[in-house]
């Protein structure tokens, strides 16, 4: 219906390989970008700071995880540790006088270098064993972060992040922080979109489908695994740094624990492996749904004066979180991104459903 391909004729390669070949989608993207730009002046500041901003930051991290899990097909159960490394590196760098712009890139590079350690596990094993070894590495990283005083500033210490100074301007306003977050997520999204039509992305997909077969046709599978780990760790590291600088404003070891790794995985898989729009959906789903359900439950409990204790209520978001993962996997294992694609493919040829490929 909306996604009409009728009348869209690609007469050259450039237009055929454009990011959004369908006119409706191209216009929708501009509209969404415009809405995102005016959001700080339209939305309530509470909604902006506590919903939109974390959603965008987590989305950028999920996109990074999607690069390694959905595109290169390598398991990464320690992504939160990678984000933590980026965050700690950049916080320490700014505290030692490095300008913020460089510090944040430094965080990404630090995450990238340590993230490549994970890649050496990928050299040796794959599949389940890679998942388990990265899981174990997350435990080791957690331990190192919380037990080495030079990193965490002491056992269970909290480090304040210095205010952001971008090009000499101190940024403290909500809108300013929001624009930094927005710029980063747009950058990552553009990178991921372009991955689809570049040799790098195709090499990742070849490695994902079968690394031996990829090696046979001349794609160096270990090299591309290493690149995938490094790039996704860079994205994760910078996202972690932005999470600290723009949202939490202080850093502790618990912010990057194993639970967060699992949460990121849940976002990626519920969003849909390899799906970019799915990453946005998945992050929103996991971040917002449990809280909303809990508000609903509290409201129900109060309205109908049900005897639900505060302790029970505090566990219900986790029940919902677990149930949501199970349900999405049962209904559509390829996630919300696939659901969106199904709707899109249906509307593309509506009302001539038999044309669907």
């Amino acid at each position, binding site marked *: 219906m909306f996604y009409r391909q009728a009348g869209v004729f690609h007469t050259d390669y450039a237009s055929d390989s454009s990011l959004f070949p369908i006119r409706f989608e191209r216009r929708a993207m501009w509209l969404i970008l415009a809405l995102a730009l005016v959001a700080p002046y339209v939305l309530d500041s509470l909604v902006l700071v506590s919903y939109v901003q974390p959603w965008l930051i987590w989305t950028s991290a999920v996109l990074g995880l999607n690069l390694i899990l959905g595109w290169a097909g390598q398991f990464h159960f320690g992504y939160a540790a990678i984000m933590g490394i980026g965050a700690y590196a950049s916080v320490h760098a700014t505290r030692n006088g490095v300008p913020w712009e460089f510090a944040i890139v430094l965080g990404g590079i630090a995450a990238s270098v340590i993230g490549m350690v994970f890649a050496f596990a990928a050299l040796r094993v794959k599949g389940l064993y890679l998942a*388990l070894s990265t899981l*174990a590495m997350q435990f080791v990283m957690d*331990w190192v972060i919380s037990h080495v005083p030079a990193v965490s500033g002491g056992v269970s210490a909290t480090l304040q992040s210095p205010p952001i100074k971008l090009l000499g301007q101190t940024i403290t306003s909500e809108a300013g922080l929001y624009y930094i977050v927005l710029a980063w997520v747009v950058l990552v999204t553009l990178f991921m979109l372009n991955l689809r039509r570049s040799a790098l992305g195709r090499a990742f997909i070849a490695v994902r489908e079968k690394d031996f077969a990829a090696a046979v046709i001349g794609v160096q599978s270990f090299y591309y695994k290493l690149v995938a780990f490094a790039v996704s760790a860079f994205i994760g590291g910078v996202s972690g740094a932005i999470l600290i600088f723009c949202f939490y404003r202080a850093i502790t070891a618990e912010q990057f624990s194993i639970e967060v790794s699992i949460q990121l995985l849940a976002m990626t898989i519920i969003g849909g492996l390899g799906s970019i729009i799915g990453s946005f959906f998945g992050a929103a789903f996991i971040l917002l749904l449990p809280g909303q359900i809990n508000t609903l439950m509290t409201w129900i409990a109060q309205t109908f004066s049900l005897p639900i204790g505060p302790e029970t209520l505090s*566990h219900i978001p986790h029940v919902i979180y677990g149930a949501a993962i199970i349900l999405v996997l049962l209904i559509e294992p390829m996630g919300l991104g696939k659901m969106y694609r199904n709707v899109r493919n249906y509307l593309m040829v509506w009302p001539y459903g038999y044309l669907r490929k």
Partner: protein
Amino acid sequence: MDLIYYLELAVNGAMGGLMYALVAMGIVLIYKSSSVPNLAQGALTMAAAYIVLAFSDALGIAPLLAIPLAALAMFLAGMLIERVALRRLAGWPIVMVLMMTLGLDIFIRAITLTFWGGSARTLQLGIPDTPLFIGPLLINRAYLVGAVVALVFFAIFRFFFRTRRGILLRAIADDYVASWSVGISVEHGVALSWALSSLTATAAGALWGSVQTVDQGLSLLLLKGLTVAVLGGLDSIGGAVLAGLLLGIVENILAGYLDPLLGGGTRELVVALVLILTIMIRPFGLFGKHDIERI
């Protein structure tokens, strides 16, 4: 820092390790029959401990007598989990299966805490607290009972895999397509393995619940169970027992040595390092089957 101290650590570690092997056996049983790495085993163990307590509270009986009832409930719960959550995912990539078991882990933990609350509770199995003296060694009686139970479970499984139903399970583990084609009900076999692994979870939950307290901490046994399962080979029950012994001894001695040096919390670190080293050096474990991959 004398020899006796380390010997004591080793003996108690070995028995604790056999109790880890109980958790690991559950993981191995499921992995053997359906190649599903069950990351919800820790949550199942925790839920089992809570269910034992719930039965003993509701019926006013001793926890020891509530264990058979809890075992029955867990047996059915295991089958239910397989039927509802895992059967539909057969044939999907392993990442979805892993995520499903992680989702189950979160769900089971949260639903248990929703019903019975997160405050730590004690579970008295009637094992005296006084240590047992063997020569100069102090031995924790609860660990001793746990080790014996683990060995009994191992013996039962050894026997079970020689019965008709056990041979069916072994056939499924060996090649499920071939089993299917000769008329073995693979679904029932996999459901049975989930039920059996829930039984071991009940034993593990009750024993660990009596050693520690019954709270969320029980689900952390997952990492130890996984490490033992991988070290022994993911499809070898005997391997799980031996690896449990090994990990228990190594963990206890290293933690006893490193804890004063590094300021505590090295137990998890040692376990994680053992897991990493195992996977890097010998991914198929001590007794696991080599996987040969075809293009």
